[in-house]
């Protein structure tokens, strides 16, 4: 195996580091934007689904825990979770929630809202997370609010993915992962344009 292969296989470490950093200092949640932007840019610029296939730390983490550590029950996903409408529906829901989070950020930026220093799990439950807000005056409040919102999104989807990993097959999250759906859509559009 080449060196090239070995570092690619270690991307799951970044996933673990990301969630650990966000536990201690929420501003590191901004790093998660890489998981949003990189796959989209890669699929737009001809790398197809290379992110999902080789670089996605979360996918590797699920494989490692599910297949390697045998934490997965390896059952088939129910048909409705695999269906196209659920995949696209979840993507749209996820994007609406992302925009909703941008509005909360905008509210702080425009001075009409106050900081909510909690991580909102499943878009519903506020978990107190004040200790991670330790940047002080050096970072604008809106950036901290965005970090809280983004970390909420990332942690919620990680928990969903872990539950899917345990109950179903290791990489069941990949079936309805919004980034996976988006990159596959981009690839389909690119292919249609090419033909």
């Amino acid at each position, binding site marked *: 195996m080449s060196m090239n292969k070995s570092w690619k296989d270690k991307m799951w470490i970044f996933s673990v580091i990301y969630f650990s950093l966000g536990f201690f200092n929420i501003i590191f949640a901004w790093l998660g934007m890489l998981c949003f932007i990189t796959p989209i840019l890669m699929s737009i610029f001809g790398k*197809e*689904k290379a992110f999902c296939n080789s670089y996605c730390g979360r996918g590797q983490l699920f*494989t490692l825990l599910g297949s390697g550590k045998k934490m997965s029950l390896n059952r088939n996903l129910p048909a409705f979770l695999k269906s196209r409408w659920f995949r696209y529906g979840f993507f749209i829901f996820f994007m609406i929630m992302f925009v909703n989070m941008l509005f909360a950020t905008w509210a702080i930026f425009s001075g009409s809202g106050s900081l909510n220093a909690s991580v909102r799990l499943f878009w519903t439950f506020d978990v107190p997370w004040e200790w991670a807000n330790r940047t002080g005056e050096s970072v604008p409040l809106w950036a901290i609010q965005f970090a809280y919102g983004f970390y909420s999104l990332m942690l919620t989807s990680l928990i969903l993915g872990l539950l899917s990993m345990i109950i179903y097959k290791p990489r069941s999250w990949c079936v309805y992962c919004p980034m996976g759906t988006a990159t596959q859509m981009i*690839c389909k559009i690119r292919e249609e344009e090419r033909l």
Partner: protein
Amino acid sequence: MTLSVLFPVPYVTRSRTYGLIGAIKCETADIGCDHMATSIEKRKKARILRDNCVACGACVNVCPVNSVSIYKGIWADVDPEKCIGCSKCEKICPASAITMEVPE
């Protein structure tokens, strides 16, 4: 497969024998194939159900002979020439987009 157990010899093309009665292992046992030996022609191979495939690449990573690739980021593609029918990809596929079938 039943036939190959009962009458292993004519059906076995390139397998190793372990014992006398039908205990014949696939020639690909070293790389994880747990099939009983059967002729290359009769062996099941992975087939992709393209409508279900999400192109996540789980099958690519698990294939012991690198017979799976992702076509243009849209769906997985199996090279039937390389596929040894070990069904590892079928077991890992989260979208149940792989079936094992004897090629026509």
